[in-house]
C-alpha cells in the first residue's frame, strides 16, 4: 500500500523544513571553519585550513577543550556505577516505595537546569569546592542521571530473572552472578547511558557557566563568551570539535546498540 500523493506531500513538507532547520547550523559551522577569508561571508571566500592551524596554536582553546574532556570523563565515571546500580535495583527488585524513589530520582529533570545549577553552586560554594573541575563533573552527573537510569532499566526489562537463578544454581556466588550474568545482560543499556552522559557533559553549558570561574572555563562557556563579541571563523573551527564528537557518538551508538533502540515502544 503506497500512501496517497497528498499525504506524502503533507508529510514531506514538514519533514523537509524540519531537516533543514535541524541541520543548517551544523552545515554552516562546518562550512565557515574552512573559509579562507577573515570574516564569515556569503558567498564563501575560498577554502583554507588556516583557522584549524590557528586554533591548534591557541593554548586557551586547547586547555578549555582538555578541561571539558576531563569534566565529561568524571561525569561518565561517576554515572556508570551509580546509574547502573540504581537502574538495576528499580528494574529487578520489588522495592518498597518504588514510586517515591522514581519521583525522587527524576528530580534532576523536574527541577529546571538554572535551579539545579544555582543550588549546586551554593552547595559547592559552601563546601569550598568551587574553582575546581571535578565538582563540575559531579554536577553534570547529577543533572543527567535519569538518562543513565532510564537506559539501564530499559535494557534490564529484557533480562530474564531465571538466568541469575540458573547461575546461582550452578554455584555462582552473588558477586560472580552479578558480574558475569547480570552486567553483560544490561551492557547495551550501560553503553547507551554512558555515551549519553559523556556527550551531554561535553556539551553542558549552563551548569558549567555557573560552576566555573575565568580560570577553568569549559569549552562551551569559552565559545559563549567569545560569540558575544565578534564572530570570527576560528570559533567555527573549534566548534567542529563538537560536531565531530557528536558524529562519533552517533556512530558508536549505532554500531554498539543500534539507533533504532530509541524507536521502540515501551
Amino acid at each position, binding site marked *: 500500500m503506497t500512501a496517497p500523493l497528498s499525504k506524502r506531500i503533507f508529510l514531506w513538507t*514538514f519533514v523537509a523544513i524540519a531537516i533543514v532547520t535541524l541541520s543548517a547550523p551544523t552545515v554552516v559551522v562546518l562550512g565557515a571553519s574552512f573559509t579562507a577569508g577573515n570574516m564569515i561571508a556569503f558567498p564563501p571566500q575560498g577554502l583554507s585550513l588556516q583557522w584549524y592551524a590557528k586554533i591548534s596554536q591557541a593554548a586557551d582553546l586547547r586547555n578549555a577543550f582538555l578541561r571539558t574532556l576531563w569534566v565529561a570523563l568524571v561525569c561518565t565515571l561517576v554515572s556508570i556505577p551509580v546509574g547502573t546500580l540504581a537502574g538495576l*535495583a528499580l528494574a529487578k527488585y520489588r522495592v518498597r516505595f518504588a514510586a517515591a524513589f522514581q519521583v525522587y530520582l527524576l528530580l534532576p529533570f*523536574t527541577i529546571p537546569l538554572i535551579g539545579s545549577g544555582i543550588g*549546586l*553552586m551554593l552547595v559547592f560554594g559552601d563546601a569550598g569546592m568551587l574553582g575546581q573541575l571535578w565538582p563540575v563533573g559531579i554536577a553534570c552527573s547529577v543533572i543527567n542521571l535519569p538518562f543513565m537510569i532510564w537506559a539501564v532499566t530499559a535494557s534490564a526489562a529484557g533480562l530474564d530473572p531465571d538466568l541469575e537463578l540458573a547461575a546461582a544454581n550452578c554455584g555462582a556466588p552473588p558477586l560472580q552472578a552479578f558480574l558475569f550474568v547480570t552486567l553483560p545482560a544490561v551492557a547495551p543499556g550501560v553503553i547507551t547511558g554512558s555515551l549519553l552522559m559523556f556527550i551531554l557533559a561535553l556539551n553542558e553549558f549552563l551548569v558549567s557557566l555557573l560552576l566555573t570561574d575565568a580560570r577553568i572555563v569549559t569549552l562551551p562557556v569559552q565559545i*559563549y563568551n567569545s560569540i558575544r563579541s565578534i564572530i570570527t571563523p576560528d570559533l567555527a573551527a573549534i566548534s567542529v570539535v563538537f560536531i565531530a564528537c557528536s558524529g562519533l557518538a552517533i556512530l558508536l551508538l549505532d554500531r554498539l546498540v543500534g539507533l533504532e533502540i530509541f524507536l521502540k515502544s515501551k
Partner: protein
Amino acid sequence: MTRSSNPYPLRWRVLDALDAVAAAVWPRSMASATPYLMLLPAVLLVGLLVLGLWQMADSSLRTLDTTTFLFSEDYSLANYRRAVTEPLFAVVAWRSLLAAAIVTLVTLVFAFPYAYLMVRTRSSRLRKALLIALFLPFFIGQVVRAYGWLIILGNQGMVNEALGLVGIPPMRLIYNYPAVLFGLVQYMLPFAVLMLTPALTAIPDELEAAAGSLGANWVRTFLHVVLPLARPGFIGAGVVVVTLSLTDFAVPAILGGGSQDFIANAIYDQFFRTSDQGLGATLALMLVALGSLVVGIVFALFGAGTLAVGARR
C-alpha cells in the same frame, strides 16, 4: 585461564576472595536490603540537588542590605514581595510563558510528521537518516547551534550578505523575540520527536489500514485514529518542551542578545550582575514552583502520557 598447569586458576581465586569479602561486608541475612543499598549512591547524588533547594530556600528569606552588601540574619519574605511586585519580573515571566506556549505548539506540529514518517517508513535507510539528522544537533549542544544561527542570521550574516547581493538592505534578523522562538523550536524538536515516537510505534499499522478500507481518507485517519491514539506521546513531548523552553537560558541569551531575557536569564543576572543572591534564589525557587505547576496542570488535565511509561513498569 593464563596458567593451565594450575588446577585452580588465579582469576577464580580472586573472584572467590572478592565474594568472601562481599559476604563478610554484606551478609546473606541482609539480602532483602540489597536493592536499597544499590539505590543509595543515586539517592545521595540527587540529594545534592535537595541540599541545593534547601540552601536556596534559606537564601531567599534573607534580604540584601545595599549599604553594607551583607545579608540579613533574620528571615523575611521581602524578596518574595519584590519578585511579585516588580514590573520587570512580570514582563520577563510573561515573555517566557508566552514563548513556552508558542514554542510547544510549533514544535509539536513539526515533530508529529517527522516522528510519523520515521516510524512508518519501510525504508530502513530513510529511518536511519532521519534519526541521524535528529541526533546530530541534539548531541552538538546549544551554544554551537546558536553560534551557527548567528552566522546565518547575524547582521553581517549569510542571509543579509545574500540579500545585499540583490540590493536589499540588511535586516535585523536576530536579537528579537521571533529569533529566540525560532532557536527554541530548533532546540526542542529532537526532544519532542523522541518523546512522540514510542507512542506512534505503539499504534498498529493495521488500524490505519482498517480505517482506510472503511473509506476514511488519510486526513480523517490522522484526525480520528492516529492523533487520538498518539495522545500519550503528545503529552510527554508537550511537557518536556514546555518545561525546557520555559526555563531555557542559552537561546534567549545568545539569540536574544540581552534584550529578550527569560526567567533563567533574570535569575543569572541577580546572582552575577546585581549580586543579590537572596532575590536570585527567590526567583529560582519560584521558577521551580512555576515549572512544577505547569507540569501538574498538564498531568491533571491529560494524564502523564509517555512520561508515565518513562516511570518504569
